[in-house]
């Protein structure tokens, strides 16, 4: 039972981090209808900035700088590439983002090399004991921060002018423009917000029990894709649910790996994608979505 609870808490915590990534992914899709495959490299950029800067300016300042850097990279990708790519089809734009992702990831992994870069976080490998359950402090912080960010984001989405502009654009871009919404700004801000959320996620993906940032971090970020897609590409609620489902499934599958040996090793890594496929077979537009990914 304790094992199950521990796995569950860890799963929810990891899931909350995935939800941050998925949320950015969904925000970009809502604002621009582009499936953004650059997301993993935005995350890597944020993580790399933190790893590179923390010896110079300390952890917290490095985190702030990393968030700003990832937001900037996101905004630049939008401004310099997507805004100028006058291609008719969203499918082509999605492929453009794959190209940008490959460029960015190649450059970043070249810089990272074969090293594992520590982020210099203050939590180290400390654990919290709550009754029979033992959880890493990093996981608890990740859960708290992710939850706070998600709540802040949803409130902003619901109540601020930015959120109203965003939702109006998502529903009907032309009519939003008739309301005076500057679509370029909406799109730019979506990419920046997505970058910022990805950088926070990067930080939590690279601290204990993970040894640090390495070239595999982008692969970990890829798990947010099934999270976003199974929740429904255009649904913020879906991003949260999807993140949690992926996090918990992955953690439980890995935790009970020995019992599930008949499924083969590494089932934890494959599980998110299996869950995504099953859910999409049952509900083509995802759990909470209204648009099918096939549309793009």
């Amino acid at each position, binding site marked *: 039972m304790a094992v199950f609870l521990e796995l569950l808490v860890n799963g929810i915590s990891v899931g909350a981090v995935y939800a941050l990534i998925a949320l950015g992914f969904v925000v970009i899709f809502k604002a621009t209808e582009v499936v953004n495959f650059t997301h993993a490299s935005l995350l890597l950029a944020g993580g790399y900035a933190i790893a590179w800067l923390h010896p110079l300016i300390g952890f917290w300042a490095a985190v702030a700088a990393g968030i700003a850097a990832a937001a900037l990279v996101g905004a630049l990708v939008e401004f310099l590439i997507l805004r100028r790519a006058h291609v008719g089809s969203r499918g082509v734009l999605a492929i453009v983002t794959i190209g940008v992702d490959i460029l960015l990831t190649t450059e970043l992994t070249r810089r990272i090399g074969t090293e594992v870069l520590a982020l210099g976080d203050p939590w180290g490998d400390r654990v919290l004991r709550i009754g029979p359950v033992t959880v890493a402090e990093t996981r608890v912080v990740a859960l708290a921060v992710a939850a706070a960010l998600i709540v802040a984001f949803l409130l902003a989405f619901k109540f601020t002018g930015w959120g*109203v*502009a965003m939702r*109006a654009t998502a529903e009907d871009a032309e*009519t939003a*423009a*008739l*309301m*005076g919404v500057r679509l370029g700004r909406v799109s730019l801000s979506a990419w920046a917000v997505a970058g910022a959320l990805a950088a926070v996620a990067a930080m939590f993906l690279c601290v204990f029990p993970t040894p640090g940032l390495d070239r595999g971090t982008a692969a970990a970020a890829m798990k947010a894709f099934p999270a976003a897609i199974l929740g429904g590409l255009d649904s913020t609620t879906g991003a949260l649910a999807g993140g949690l489902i992926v996090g918990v499934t992955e953690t439980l599958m890995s935790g009970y790996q020995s019992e599930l040996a008949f499924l083969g090793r590494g089932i934890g890594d494959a599980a998110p994608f299996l869950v995504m496929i099953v859910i999409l077979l049952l509900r083509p537009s995802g759990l909470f979505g209204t648009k099918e990914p096939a549309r793009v």
Partner: protein
Amino acid sequence: MSGEAGPGIGGPETVGPGTAAPGTVDPGIAAPGTVDQRSEGLDIRGLEVRYGPVRALRGVHLAVPRGAVAAVLGANGAGKTTLLRAVSGTLRFHRGAITSGTVAFGGSRLDGVPAAAVVRRGVVQVPEGRRVFARMTVAENLRAGALSVPGRRAAAARERVLELFPVLAERAHQRAGLLSGGEQQMLAIGRALMAGPSLLLLDEPTLGLAPLMAARIADTVRQINAQGTSVLLVEQNAAMALALAERAYVLEVGEVTLSGPAADLAASDEVRRRYLGVGVPETDRPVGTDPGPAHERPERTRLARWTA
């Protein structure tokens, strides 16, 4: 062409002496000072719009003086919506572009100005088919309409809108998609008013509404205009449009074929027959008023179904 229309303004055929009111000279709003007022209000000259190879408007001249209501009549596919898109800067959403001519408002050019900036110049369009944000509440829709103005002005505009449409206050927290067609039209107009426009562009506001609701919308347009907002009204309901407007234009296959004071147009045989569905039978159509090559617009209908 009557003298008051001014040089280079008005369609190829302006209703005036002879057509409608023999002996009178184009009374209506084309009064002295019109030309000056035009440079104040909306002024469209020689407008040509294309969607790729499709030429949707050719050489359109049209003016809405400050404070006036002007109506544009025309069959399906005549280019009415295209005309409004050219003013509001939304052609680019339909891969269309202005290929020649100018659109000016308040003395400065609007052509080439992005949609969001047109709104900030005081010109706001209510799109065809209402297009309320269905997944947002009524209150949020109104808020969206005010995104281009500072908070204080938005609050004042909101008060004015809710006074005009009390039903929107009752339904404030309901999803806009659940409103009736008439309520959605009121929301669409209210949402546009939130930006405090000096010129309102209305695209078929009574389409699909029951006569009573259409009459209410017409009353509202009159009220909005009385409060100082100019209106460019696109309508297939010619009777209503001609009753509201001071000046009217008939658009056919992308060209203004008739224009003049609304009262004169309402009295002209051609308009009565083709847009008001009264008078001379169809077969007696005089030569020279052919509606254009039918093969170009198969879904073209007589407007006779809109009986006054």
